[in-house]
């Protein structure tokens, strides 16, 4: 794939940082899509954790759930009992955007736009999504679209208007294959791609177990990056803290900010803002393999 093999790979793509910084200067919103193809790899967890990490620094962040019929971002954020209107209500003109947005109880700059739990995914229209995102762009610094699994309508619309994509990948064959497919779609089916521009793509490796990777039992970071030829945003270690946080309805970056996965998400959020952060796998301090696994990303 000439288009992809020529891409800069590295633990941090310097151009990406510069470009982001420039955008922040002109206060333009960034639309991110968190996507993966495969289900259960951590898209919703990552959306909530990164959204909270960015909002904690004062940025205005909207997270949008695109998983119509199977919404879960509300649950992971602990806002499930506060949902009144949803994305489809806004698209259909039943509710105003300001009525549907739910402000987080812990972070006043974090907002959730939930998906509909009852409607059909076909209720999402391309024009409707475009309009909602354009309106959000005028009010927020970051708009993070949580994509459903698969490559159906909801997933295609979640990535449609993205400026940058976070491809959540587990170090496992089926997840890597699906990520590769998603990368192909980001390069062809997004509005930016159709205009001849490029959606910035970043791999976020989740559920990484450095002990197993060191033993050769799990694909290593380098294996994944080499296969996908896409720069790395962060490495989230496998941790019980992630489940604990979703149990109580709080992003891990808020629920236990000092835990290994939370620190990894904070690092990833700083990289999104254009900061240069050394790529390490934060550990919870057990065993010799967890000694900060500093490695180059490519």
């Amino acid at each position: 794939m000439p288009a992809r093999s020529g891409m800069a790979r590295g633990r941090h793509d310097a151009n990406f940082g510069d470009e982001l910084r420039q955008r922040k200067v002109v206060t333009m919103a960034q639309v991110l899509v968190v996507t993966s193809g495969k289900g259960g790899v951590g898209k919703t967890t990552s959306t909530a954790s990164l959204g909270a990490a960015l909002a904690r620094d004062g940025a205005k962040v909207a997270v949008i759930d695109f998983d119509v019929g199977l919404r879960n971002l509300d649950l992971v954020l602990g806002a499930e009992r506060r949902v009144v209107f949803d994305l489809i209500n806004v698209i259909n003109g039943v509710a105003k955007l300001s009525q549907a947005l739910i402000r987080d109880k812990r972070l006043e700059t974090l907002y959730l736009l939930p998906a509909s739990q009852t409607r059909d995914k076909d209720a999402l229209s391309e024009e409707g999504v475009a309009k909602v995102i354009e309106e959000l762009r005028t009010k927020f610094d970051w708009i993070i679209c949580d994509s459903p699994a698969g490559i159906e309508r909801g997933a295609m619309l979640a990535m449609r208007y993205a400026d940058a994509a976070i491809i959540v990948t587990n170090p496992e064959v089926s997840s890597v294959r699906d990520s590769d497919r998603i990368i192909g779609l980001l390069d062809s089916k997004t509005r930016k791609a159709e205009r001849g521009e490029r959606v910035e793509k970043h791999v976020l490796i989740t559920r990484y177990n450095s002990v197993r990777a060191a033993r050769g039992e799990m694909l290593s970071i380098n294996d994944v990056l080499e296969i996908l030829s896409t720069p790395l945003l962060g490495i989230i270690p496998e941790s019980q803290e992630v489940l604990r946080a979703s149990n109580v309805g709080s992003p891990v970056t808020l629920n236990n900010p000092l835990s290994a996965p939370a620190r990894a998400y904070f690092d990833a959020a700083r990289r999104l803002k254009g900061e240069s952060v050394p790529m390490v796998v934060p550990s919870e301090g057990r065993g010799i393999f967890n000694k900060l696994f500093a490695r180059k990303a490519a």
Partner: protein
Amino acid sequence: MRLFHLFRRGSAPIARERLQILLAHERVACSHPDLLGILREEIIAVIGRHVSFEPDKVQIKMDRGKSVSTLAVDIEIPNLDQMSGLVPRYNQPTARPDNSVFGMEGSEI
């Protein structure tokens, strides 16, 4: 021996190798969603300029190997001796040499 080998180096290298081979093929397939269909049409057009045959009797197969893939094109062409004396661009559909239908149709011309 093989199991022992697997045990020693872990299964990740195998995963990596399988993925590399698979994705190399899938990327080609995705950039040309109907590669075989396009090949089929163009091959039929080129061969059809010189030989007449029935488009249904064309089989195109692609086999994916580890380092190389093969493209097999199988075209059933009516025997030339049966076609001799006929117009060069004889376009009757049937092609089997021992087929009486062919003779019947040929005699009609």
